[in-house]
């Protein structure tokens, strides 16, 4: 069992938890993820790592309630335990293996959308601890949805915030703000690392490709085991099929087939919807809809 040591509601429907998992914390690097299974009957839910405390032996996770399982997860409190917590999964961010002196010469900007701020944070922090200060753009719906502002400020060179409604920082999408930094402010970035909703990463990558700026994205497809066994997470990168769980989750954003990746993310939407309905309305949706085939 893996104990939740702390829980914070960091934004509407977004929760942060410190979970005791000594083996995972010891081995984890930025860019990797974990899989959480709440109880015996639960799903295996892949979640990005938001922070690693090797001394305390904890991993910090951040999640947004989106479907049946994440809503159930939000009901867990500090002191409760998850039955299973496994990781670290996937490859660490590429820069972890790079020469620090070479890395220092690069101008790096992170672009985070929504809860994407969570996996961006440990990467910026790692760079900061190695003497490299990167810029960060965080985009969200409005001010109340902004995550980890103080934490991010402490480890980045510049933190730029964009809100859809203009309630804080720049009014507009992260792609517009990135454009401004690149074209108006002439920041001269060599590397963009974009993590957020698939559609955001698609448009960031489209723009940076035009600009010729190297771009890394982190994908979050459907997966079961997270070790290469099921192949549910297969994505096409540069015309080749990759398993995001073991080959990724980070890939060259200019090579990812985002349209396919977005389509594959919807695979179990109907099943999950039915699960929520069943929970809310009781056992009335038992046999997969009315048989008209509209449930596909």
């Amino acid at each position, binding site marked *: 069992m893996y104990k939740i040591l702390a829980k914070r509601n960091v934004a509407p429907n977004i929760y942060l938890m410190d979970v005791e998992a000594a*083996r*995972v914390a*010891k*081995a984890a690097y930025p860019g990797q993820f974990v899989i959480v*299974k709440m109880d015996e*009957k*639960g*799903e*295996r839910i892949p979640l990005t790592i938001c922070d690693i405390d090797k001394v305390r032996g904890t991993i910090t996770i951040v999640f947004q309630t989106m479907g*049946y*399982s994440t809503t*159930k997860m939000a009901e867990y409190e500090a002191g409760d335990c998850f*039955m*299973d*917590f*496994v*990781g*670290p*999964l996937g490859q660490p961010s590429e820069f972890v293996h790079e020469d620090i002196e070479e890395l220092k010469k690069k101008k790096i900007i992170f672009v985070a959308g929504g809860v994407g701020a969570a996996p961006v944070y440990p990467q910026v922090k790692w760079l900061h601890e190695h003497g490299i200060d990167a810029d960060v753009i965080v985009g969200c719906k409005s001010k109340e949805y902004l995550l980890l502002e103080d934490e991010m400020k402490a480890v980045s060179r510049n933190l730029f915030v964009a809100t859809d409604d203009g309630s804080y920082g720049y009014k507009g999408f992260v792609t517009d703000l990135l454009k401004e930094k690149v074209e108006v402010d002439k920041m001269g970035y060599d590397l963009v690392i974009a993590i957020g909703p698939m559609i955001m990463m698609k448009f960031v990558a489209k723009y940076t490709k035009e600009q010729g700026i190297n771009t890394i994205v982190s994908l979050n497809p459907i997966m*079961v*085991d997270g*070790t*290469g*066994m*099921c*192949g*549910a997470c*297969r994505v*096409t990168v540069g015309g080749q*099929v990759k398993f995001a769980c*073991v080959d990724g989750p980070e890939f060259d954003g200019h090579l990812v087939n985002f349209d*396919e990746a977005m*389509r*594959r993310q*919807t*695979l*179990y939407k109907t*099943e*999950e919807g039915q*699960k929520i309905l069943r929970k809310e309305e009781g056992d009335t949706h*038992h046999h997969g809809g009315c048989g008209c*085939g509209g449930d*596909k």
Partner: protein
Amino acid sequence: MDRMKKTPVKEQDPKVRATNFDEVCLGYTVEEAMQEASRCLNCKNPLCVTQCPVSIDIPGFIKCAKEGDFAQAAKVIARTSALPAVCGRVCPQEVQCEGKCILGIKGEPVAIGKLERFVADWSRENNIDLAETMPKNGKKVAVIGSGPAGLTCAGDLAKLGYDVTIFEALHEPGGVLVYGIPEFRLPKDKVVKTEIENVKKLGVKIETNVIIGKTVTIDELMEDEKFDAVFVGSGAGLPKFMGIPGENLNGVFSANEFLTRNNLMKAFKDEYDTPIKPGKKVAVVGGGNVAMDAARTALRLGAQVYIVYRRSEEELPARVEEVHHAKEEGIIFNLLTNPVEILGDEKGWVKGMKCVKMELGEPDESGRRRPVEIPGSEFVIDVDTVIMSLGTSPNPLISSTTCGLETNRRKCLIADEETGLTTKDKVYAGGDAVTGAATVILAMGAGKKAAKAIDEYLSK
């Protein structure tokens, strides 16, 4: 009774079982088991034993069963096998022990598998204590993977007094017995869990959620956690795909994903949160036991199911019994058929599979006749789901993170056939991780040999 015929075993009616996940075979009663046991000639030079990868004293346990002493029969089996209730159900006895039974020359061989199953089930139901171990010797062995190879190796070493810890990547121990083989062939709670509990009773510890190569490496286990030797029984978990157009459409799954969702994650049970898409018309591509398992699972979830296999019935790698059961349940076999493209609708979901007819040509390197395309024979099968069951290969997570552990070009670990010793000192391996996808019993045989070699090495 006809001495030349096997005592028939009761099975669930095909029409009924096609709609449930309960076990197909119901097993012998005490009387039936004793009757079947009495058919054994108790050969002086038993050929059956030579065909068993774990060398069970087959005439020995059958003799006890004939006399009705099932407790003793269970003890005879337990001397060499940790998983009899599993083996009695999933071993290919027809090509192993039963294949060499003298009775089989003129009639039907003794139903050794069904007797083994009966004895194991009886001993479980009657709580027979089979845990006999030697005093602890203070030496630590790590076993990676809790499938048939790992459980066998761990069990044998624990009996010899070793302090054994199994590391399992998934949240539940059992490996392929839990994620791969379906409930209707191998009940999880009743059979698999109990046999794992029996291994634990020998003193074996099992740590789940530890992915060797990610959570901790083999080198760290030996250096930091002071294990004296390591056995790698990590199986062959990576699914293969065909590489044909349309394979990433929504509705194309690996058999591994489909079976894992249903078996390990219990998608067929409503109270579990696991989603699964059984589809209405399903094509399962492949002809092995896993393909039969995937097909029969999809059928039970309500689909109409086709097996699509490029060779003929004779070459089907699946056990005859599995093919027979699948046909009885209504699976349609499209043999000598090979997919060339999966077709999608405008939203990217599977709407059909384009196939080509095949004929058999000259034998290939496997000795089987090579399937050759018949030009102009393309046709489309109307399906909304495709399950690829083309075999699996070992996961490179361990070999790629362990210094000095070498693999061959099929990504299998290189290990000595007799001892299981790999290219790395103190590291042994066996099962599918070494051979590529094979059977439960061969993996158990390899686990057994490695346990013996590890004991010899550590007792030096």
